[in-house]
């Protein structure tokens, strides 16, 4: 086990129901548990496949089981699978030392009145940067579509998260979790993981 920069490290994963939020926190958490850390994950569900805002709270500790919910303003890392949902998490859990990884591909909400629509993406990303100590914009969905399926955006984002070094995520441990969880799609998921690492590398 590596020494943690603080204990616990609080990660919020956010997105829209159906994107794969639960899978992301499960992959990250499983890799860390296998490496000896204590992990607690709290998830929103109910909305989990039905277009609502969803989030997972992941707490990483060297020696203790923490509660499954992160307190207001106490996130260390926000992994946003969708821009508006990233901003929503910053509002609740952000602070002046938070690092944000954001997939800039919007998912629109159903628009009953017809007056809504999606906010200006550029302004949204500026806001996110302004509220984060450091921001990584990772075009995960675009890259995933190039690989043939937008679902790989999740593994690309995990790769990006690993590459930041904010969590003691070991590539080998992640590979092992991929083999266990996606036995029929090992290569493509490993490729996505590597892609995510490259995307953070290049900046």
């Amino acid at each position, binding site marked *: 086990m590596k020494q943690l920069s603080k204990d616990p490290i609080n990660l919020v994963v956010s997105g829209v129901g159906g994107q794969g939020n639960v899978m992301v926190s499960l992959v990250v958490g499983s890799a860390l548990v296998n490496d000896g850390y204590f992990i607690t*994950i709290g998830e929103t569900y109910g909305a989990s496949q039905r277009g609502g805002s969803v989030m997972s709270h992941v707490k990483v500790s060297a020696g203790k089981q923490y509660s499954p919910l992160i307190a207001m303003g106490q996130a260390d890392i926000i992994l946003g699978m969708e821009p508006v949902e990233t901003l929503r998490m910053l509002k609740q859990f952000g602070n002046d030392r938070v690092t944000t990884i954001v997939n800039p591909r919007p998912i629109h909400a*159903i628009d009953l009145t017809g007056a809504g629509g999606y*906010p200006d993406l550029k302004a949204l990303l500026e806001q996110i940067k302004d509220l984060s100590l450091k921001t990584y914009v990772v075009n995960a969905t675009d890259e995933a579509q190039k690989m043939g399926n937008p679902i790989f955006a999740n593994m690309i984002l995990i790769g990006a998260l690993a590459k930041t070094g904010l969590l003691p995520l070991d590539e080998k441990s992640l590979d092992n979790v991929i083999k266990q969880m996606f036995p029929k799609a090992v290569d493509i998921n490993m490729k996505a993981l590597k892609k995510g690492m490259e995307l953070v590398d290049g900046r």
Partner: protein
Amino acid sequence: MALIDINAPGKNELFIGNEAIARGALEAGIGFASAYPGTPSSEIIGSLAEIANKQHIYVEWSVNEKVALEAAAAGSYAGLRSLAAMKMAGLNVASDFLASVVLTGIGKKGLVLMTGDDPEAHSSGEEEDSRNFARLFDIPLCEPGDFQEAKDMMKWLFELSEEMGSICMLRSVTRIAHARGNVKLGELPEVEHKARFPNYMDPMSIMPTSIMTVPTSIRHAIQHMKMDKVREKFESSPFNQYAGPEKPDLLLVTCGSGWLYCQDAVNALKLEKRVGILKLGTLWPLPEKLVKSCLSKTDKVLFIEETDPFLEGAIMEYSSSMSPESRHNIFYGKHSRHTNAFGELTPDAVIKAITAILDIKYQARDAAYDKKLESIPKGHMIERMLTFCPGCPHRASYWAIKNALMMDGRNGFVTGDIGCYSMALGPAGFFMNRAQHSMGSGTGLASGFGQLWRFGFDQPIISVSGDSTFFHAVMPALVNGVHNKANFVLVILDNSATAMTGFQPHPGTELTAMGEPAQQISIENICRAIGAKVDICDPFDLKSTTQTLLDLLEEKQGARVVIMRRTCELVRGKKEKHPYKMKIDPAKCLGEDCGCNRLCSRVFCCPALLWDPVEGKTRIDEVICNECGVCADVCPEGAIIREEVPA
């Protein structure tokens, strides 16, 4: 996801609470498990079912919770450790049998009832604290405070159940049942299950007897005696613990998810030297001596528990029975409004309560950051209303219902119940459901509304039910309606799965929980046998479904059934693709000039249909669209193109 039967004692696994509970049952050598799915309890049977054949245990999805508990009791009577699992709403259904099995006692082997409560009703129609059932019926009750305990407690409850000859309850809440954490695995026993229903030797008789609740008062008295013995055992249980200073300024009394929140809050406030935590795991009967000895440590006591003031009420009762000189506590909790008796707890809620009582200042983050947050324009935080998945058959069904009722023009309405289609209360189902209560209630209501013609009532009535719900609770309501000649239409939204809770099989599907071929029960045959007229349609054929429903509404008498049958998109999508490619023909989409009032992107509520404000036309989000093709029939201008592609 990890299988729960890894034989690796000492290994740490990342389990959700429900998997930990299932593992605990497995480590206890369970032989029989049954349940009806319900969040947050479904993964217990789900994960046991996956390994049932390998482990030679029997696991079933029962038709409803009452039958699940009855079936599990049979397991216990025949000498198998048996588990029934359900959500709190299901416990209401099972409670009739529960009340009697407490009195009859169990078989030679343990019987444990697991209930999952859902504070905040994340995925429920109501909030309910099932701990009250333990007190109501005199049942030994435990609640885990973390994931490790979820496993260990479940295992131990089987021993307790056998020792006491009583059904025992394990209660878990969403933030344990559905959260994940570390679980250190124990040994898996090798059990050769052998089932037999022996001559039942009742402790009250020297002769073999029947299993029965009479003589009731005497058996009630015996259960009370058992509870006294359980209380003694609970006094020294390792599931209860006090941590903190010898004389704390404030004592937190907590259980369940509250335990971790209390630790987080004390940690965040750096109050380890001032605040103590009494964590209780054995909740009913409460270990009175332990509680009283902890009360004597301090003056101020704050209760942290979800959701009702269960510990709070019972412990304040104990306190009132203490001698006046030892009664010095000031109690804080729900009665004093320091915490709520509704909704779920959070670390912030505990921090708030502690800081209020101890008069401490706490700031979650820098004030300058809060200031920055104020500058976020309101429009940036779009609200996301829940809706049916892209390609969901329910959207099409409700579109047909909406149009049929509109064409009928007599102000007809829909009564619904519990399932994905509950979302028809909102925009997803065009606000069609006008009433919603519990499983099957829509049809019960309809059978009542359907009698009101004699008082001048002339609105058409439609009740909706899912396929799993039909078997669970709608059948008696339909029998009632047909027998009494109520006038309504029952629409069964048959998506061939218990979709809301994770696609569990039900009596109408092909396989059992253990993956074996099932005797599939035909919904239409049941309805016809009851005497109802039955039509079956494919909701993706909007035109014919709407017409069928319209014709049925015009019939004046009796209960009629229409089955709208299409497999859940999340189930189907895993097996096959729709044979379509969807696109918008921008030349045909007239946008705001159309007069359709953006029927597709605003009213139809499919998340894959977007309005492009720059072009003034509709756009399809190709990342989300499942290419079901239904929207092509919604657009009045034919601007949505459904192109057939070879499979």
